[in-house]
């Protein structure tokens, strides 16, 4: 028993944007609906009109020069299954497989996951370390922004009214680089992250100097974050277990977690240390070419 609403299935993207414009601030995009439908049921969201963006061609994964374009309406099952993603961005495949359960992954989309902007959003840390760019489209303009500039706070993004997240461009990672995603929740499926973390490591030609590293954490601040101090600490240094431990410790200090029903702030800070250490280590192994999965 959902509150009544209008429903529009536009035939192309322009018509979808027109419909959003026409129906004003009460209009909402529906993609997978796994976040929107329960919110409507709980009456925390009461859209006057739903604009369906399925079947508008936003559900493809295509490889272009230097980057891969992922349509915002791609489901997590499609992402997890995609050969391109598996081969090039295992970190994203790990994030996609960590969301919900089979049934929800068959519906939920990556664009919807980002747009819902919950702090525990699993796709964000993966996209942060891949340095993805998001393309936002409205009738008036089309703009591309780094994924980190998308979130403004819990359930708040930079999306203007009648603007939608259309696709995500992920640059092809440089040679000698690797990345990984990890999540801890109260159970292994159908759960929000207590903490999630992603890391990427790019090694210099010598195979042991860290040329570049990125670390991202979720559910430990109002938005997903980059642990820049920890990243800076790693850059230019020779890889060692000690170094990684210290970076994980620094990364944990860059968070501002809260205590809630899922875990206490202290527990989250501890988890950050563990997850960052493990994510960096996986990423490093992948950079060495020792572990592709």
């Amino acid at each position, binding site marked *: *028993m*959902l*509150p*009544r*609403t*209008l*429903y529009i*299935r536009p035939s192309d993207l322009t018509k979808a944007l027109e419909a959003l414009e026409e129906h004003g601030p009460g209009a909402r995009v*529906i993609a997978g*609906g*796994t976040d929107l*439908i*329960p919110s*409507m*049921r709980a009456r925390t969201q009461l859209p006057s009109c*739903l604009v*369906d963006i*399925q079947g508008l061609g936003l559900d493809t994964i295509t490889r272009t020069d230097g980057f891969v374009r992922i349509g915002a309406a791609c489901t997590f*099952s499609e992402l997890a299954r995609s050969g391109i993603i598996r081969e090039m961005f295992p970190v994203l495949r790990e994030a996609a497989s960590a969301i*919900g*359960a*089979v*049934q*929800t992954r*068959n*519906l939920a989309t990556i664009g919807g996951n980002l747009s819902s902007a919950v702090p525990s959003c699993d796709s964000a840390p993966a996209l942060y370390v891949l340095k993805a760019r998001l393309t936002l489209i409205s009738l008036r303009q089309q703009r591309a922004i780094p994924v980190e500039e998308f979130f403004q706070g819990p359930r708040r993004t930079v999306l203007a009214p009648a603007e939608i997240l259309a696709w995500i461009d992920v640059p092809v990672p440089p040679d000698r680089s690797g990345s990984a995603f990890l999540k801890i929740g109260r159970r*292994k*499926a*159908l759960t929000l992250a207590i903490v999630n973390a992603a890391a990427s490591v790019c090694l210099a030609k010598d195979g042991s100097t860290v040329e570049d590293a990125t670390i991202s954490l979720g559910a430990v601040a109002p938005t997903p974050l980059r642990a820049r101090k920890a990243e800076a600490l790693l850059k230019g240094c020779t890889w060692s277990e000690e170094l990684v431990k210290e970076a994980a410790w620094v990364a944990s200090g860059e968070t501002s977690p809260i205590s809630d029903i899922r875990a206490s702030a202290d527990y989250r800070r501890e988890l950050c240390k563990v997850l960052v250490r493990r994510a960096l280590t996986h990423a490093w192994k992948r950079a060495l070419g020792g572990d592709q999965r």
Partner: protein
Amino acid sequence: MKRAIILVVNGTEHSVEVQPSDLLVDVLRDRLRLTGTKKGCGTGECGACTVLLDGKPVNSCLLLAIRCEGRQITTIEGLGTPDSLHVLQKAFIDNGAVQCGFCAPGMLLSAKALLDENPAPSEMDIRQALAGNICRCTGYVKIVKAVSSAARTMSGAEGGGR
């Protein structure tokens, strides 16, 4: 704002009038009287409402019926009948994988989708495929056993999967 749509359920076309806000689970149960699809939470958490949409398991409590036009919906009523059980149904009975039975329709459809894609799943594959279906009675062990025994039966007997 009612709209007439055609839903294809278990191979049969049904024409129904729906509100855009009507959920697939309610249309299946209340309008088409296909009550084998169960509702345990209404929020995508329990999996009792699982149906197959174009062969893939989804939560019918999270799906607007109006969005399912032109797609193939399979419910438990379409899996097998008391006179002609699907191998999975038989395996659930033989392995004692059913207690109260309320989770069974959803479990069976998730299991069916798994075996369609992966005829020889490991225990971990089975557990992951069923992670979106909660069973409060059995403790899952016998359900996992039933699915792997069905997989063996199906791969042993060609075409035994109906």
